[in-house]
């Protein structure tokens, strides 16, 4: 097979795939009798041309960065973690416990403690599937899916039976104390004369997500552990030869993965809702798979892909707000983006490589 230059592989292929997905989405929009150009304009205006739009886009992106990183860390060890959803849910539980039951003098301390709790809870939820995969060979795809269902049941039990304040209907915890309020972009950047990010949920957790990107990059490409995780992912037999314990590495990689997914709870529970609600993850665990794949399992790629999906979410919300397009359109667009960038990427790569090869020969 002809080879593509690395930059084309990293930039051109996803871009063209994205365009294909967009084109097909446009057809779908036409199919339900709406105007794709208007729809797209509306999405861009609502998500990118207002600071509050950015506040939402980045809020969603923060979720996707965490789950995307979670999927990609596991992927490097050739583990397919579909359990981001459940891990994030349980991570949110950790956040809620820390915020509700411990007194906090200042949000910075609360943030540190909540992050640690979220990571530990998320990691704990990933532990059993990881252990079963490592020790018993139980297929991690199946066990993590099951753990998503179990997490939902557990959270429901806790919220309804134990954590819900008396008299409240919502299966949700009480509002967190004011001291745990995280600064939103509005708190940070808006001035009297310049009301930026008004009301948008984007908050300081976004910077935590960026830190997580840097952390994952260092972990995977610069540390011994990352070296071992990747080695195991490429070849278990070679890892054994080198003295890398597959069991330990699988478990550790999954703990890190679960911890990253769990951190998403900081953003949703503490940053946005300021309480724990039943369905706060809303499929972000699954979007993480697409984000990781589109981002080629590299933190920079994950970051960019997360922004893209954040844009889709926010743009979709604007669409639903101002048009009659059902919200499922966004699900379809997401599906097409996942399909074209994640699974049909060779459909773009092969002809493109041929084109490049012809260009080379002509020169």
């Amino acid at each position, binding site marked *: *097979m*002809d*080879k593509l230059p690395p930059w084309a592989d990293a930039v051109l292929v996803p871009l063209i795939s994205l365009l294909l997905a967009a084109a097909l989405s446009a057809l779908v929009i036409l199919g339900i009798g709406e105007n794709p150009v208007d729809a797209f304009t509306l999405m861009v205006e609502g998500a990118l041309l207002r600071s509050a739009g950015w506040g939402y886009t980045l809020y969603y992106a923060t979720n996707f960065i965490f789950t995307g990183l979670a999927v990609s860390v596991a992927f490097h060890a050739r583990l397919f973690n579909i359990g981001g959803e459940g891990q994030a849910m349980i991570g949110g539980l950790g956040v809620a416990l820390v915020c509700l039951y411990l007194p906090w003098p200042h949000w910075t301390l609360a943030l540190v403690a909540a992050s640690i709790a979220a990571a530990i809870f998320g990691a704990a939820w990933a532990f059993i599937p990881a252990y079963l995969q490592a020790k018993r060979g139980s297929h991690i795809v199946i066990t993590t899916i099951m753990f998503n269902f179990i997490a939902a049941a557990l959270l429901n039990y806790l919220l309804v039976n134990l954590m819900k304040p008396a008299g409240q209907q919502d299966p949700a915890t009480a509002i967190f104390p004011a001291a745990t309020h995280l600064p939103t972009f509005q708190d940070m950047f808006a001035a009297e004369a310049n009301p930026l990010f008004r009301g948008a949920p984007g908050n300081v957790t976004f910077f935590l997500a960026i830190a997580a990107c840097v952390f994952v990059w260092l972990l995977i490409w*610069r540390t*011994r552990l990352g070296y071992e995780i990747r080695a195991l992912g490429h070849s278990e037999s*070679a890892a054994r030869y*080198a*003295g890398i314990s597959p069991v330990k590495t699988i478990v550790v990689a999954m703990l890190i993965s679960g911890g990253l997914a769990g951190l998403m709870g900081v953003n949703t529970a503490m940053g946005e809702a300021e309480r724990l609600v039943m369905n706060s993850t809303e499929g972000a665990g699954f979007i993480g798979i697409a984000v990781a794949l589109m981002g080629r399992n590299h933190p920079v790629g994950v970051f960019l892909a997360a922004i893209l999906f954040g844009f889709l979410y926010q743009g979709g919300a604007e669409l639903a707000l101002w048009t009659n397009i059902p919200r499922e359109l966004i699900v379809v667009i997401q599906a097409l983006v996942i399909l074209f960038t994640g699974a049909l990427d060779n459909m773009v790569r092969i002809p493109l490589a041929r084109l490049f090869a012809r260009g080379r020969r002509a020169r």
Partner: protein
Amino acid sequence: MTDPAIELKGISKAFGPVQANKDISIRVMPGTIHGIIGENGAGKSTLMSILYGFYAADAGEIWVKGQRTQIPDSQAAIRAGIGMVFQHFKLVQNFTVLENVILGAEDGGLLKPSLAKARGALKSLAEEYELSVDPDTQVQHLSVGHQQRVEILKALYREADILILDEPTGVLTPAEADHLFRILDNLRAEGKTIILITHKLREIMEITDTVSVMRRGEMTATVKTAETSPEELAELMVGRKVLLRVDKAPAQPKAPVLQIEDLRHVDGQGVERLRGISLEVRAGEILGLAGVAGNGQSELLNVLGGYADATGTVRVNGKDIPLSGAGCDGMARRGAGIAHVPEDRQREGLIMPYTAWENTVFGYHRDPAIQSGVLMNNAAIREEAGAKMQRFDVRPPNPDLAARNFSGGNQQKIVLAREIERNPDVLLIGQPTRGVDIGAIEFIHQQIVRLRDEGKAILLVSVELDEIFALSDRIAVMFDGRVMGTRDAADTDQRELGLLMAGITEDPGGDAFEAVDAALERKDRREAVHG
């Protein structure tokens, strides 16, 4: 004059920028064995794959038995009477021999009649060509040699009269190889045409009628075997004179460094693979471990390398080494002074997608010397790797290239460089030159001897008896998890070792190969029962 069985005219094939075959023409006469030799990457396999319809040529014509023939896919090749035995077998491991044979050559939609017909056909083929295998054994329970027979049977069942074999002896023991050559002889006698790819000049000289030499995608020469010599062929292949024998002084062994006593190992299926091994390797000597593949040599290396548990005693420089539990892994072994060049460089020795520089610390990556803080000092590792690759003549000496993009010989050099340069006390080496061309073999052998002369204790495992003889000072033979005997290399010969390898300690006289074959057959059956 008869038409050639195969005639290729002007075949060219490029993989991207690599020109694998350049305007190749060749004629193979019916009823002959035609050898093809060439360095790694010369284009031999590519050419044969084109002939078998596996790849499409960019240009050129294929003529079969005087007819211009299009071979767009393997089906067409089979129809033209061509069969191919690939270097890596194309068998379904959990199918029986019979099922493998009929796959793709069934009669009708239902299996029963096909299986019955094939059973009959196999029986007569077995008698005709000495090609016996149990039709109802699952292929995964067969020895490599018998798997190869299944491949040949597959071709013959499809009535191939032109048979291509790509490096068929790379994985065989001498006895198995000899059996194969007898089969090929029989086939030639029946009028079949055979194309044989190999790196071993001895085999070319022994069995072929004509031989073609390839270099860098081109056909450089075709000669009658009777009119050439190994030295001439080697020079045609590499483009320079090659030393075919290892040049070494007698060993100067010192104190024992590696001492093994009553070593036992049970594998995941509960089969005892090592049944009480006791060996000793001294500083400054090479102990060669000969044996048919699957008799415990690999397990012994794994146990010594730290990634299989065992009971018994292993001492290095008098110190006990843990054989299970904590402290028993590859990294701990390296700390104890044991370096290990594994048998399978691609599955064990290297992480194929890793760059060369990343691979040069594989297994040593926790060494504090290459860390800066919590991070790995990648810049330093990379720089050191470049120098190492220069010293070991790795081509190309580019540390940023992924391991998978080096040829087999150069991959092997990367592994050797990594393990040798750590200056270990004990060096375990498995199959150092499997599938490596003679130019690289020469270099690798020199390095191993150099190490011996520096006073290392070297344990060498190889299925190549030639290699064992060329390098070893003493030779131990393994059979069925035991050491059958240890001999001084100077005082033994192929025949004695061959018998030991089949578990026969008393020379029965007469045809030794028959005895060996029978012994191996017995072992196969036992294994099938275990599986």
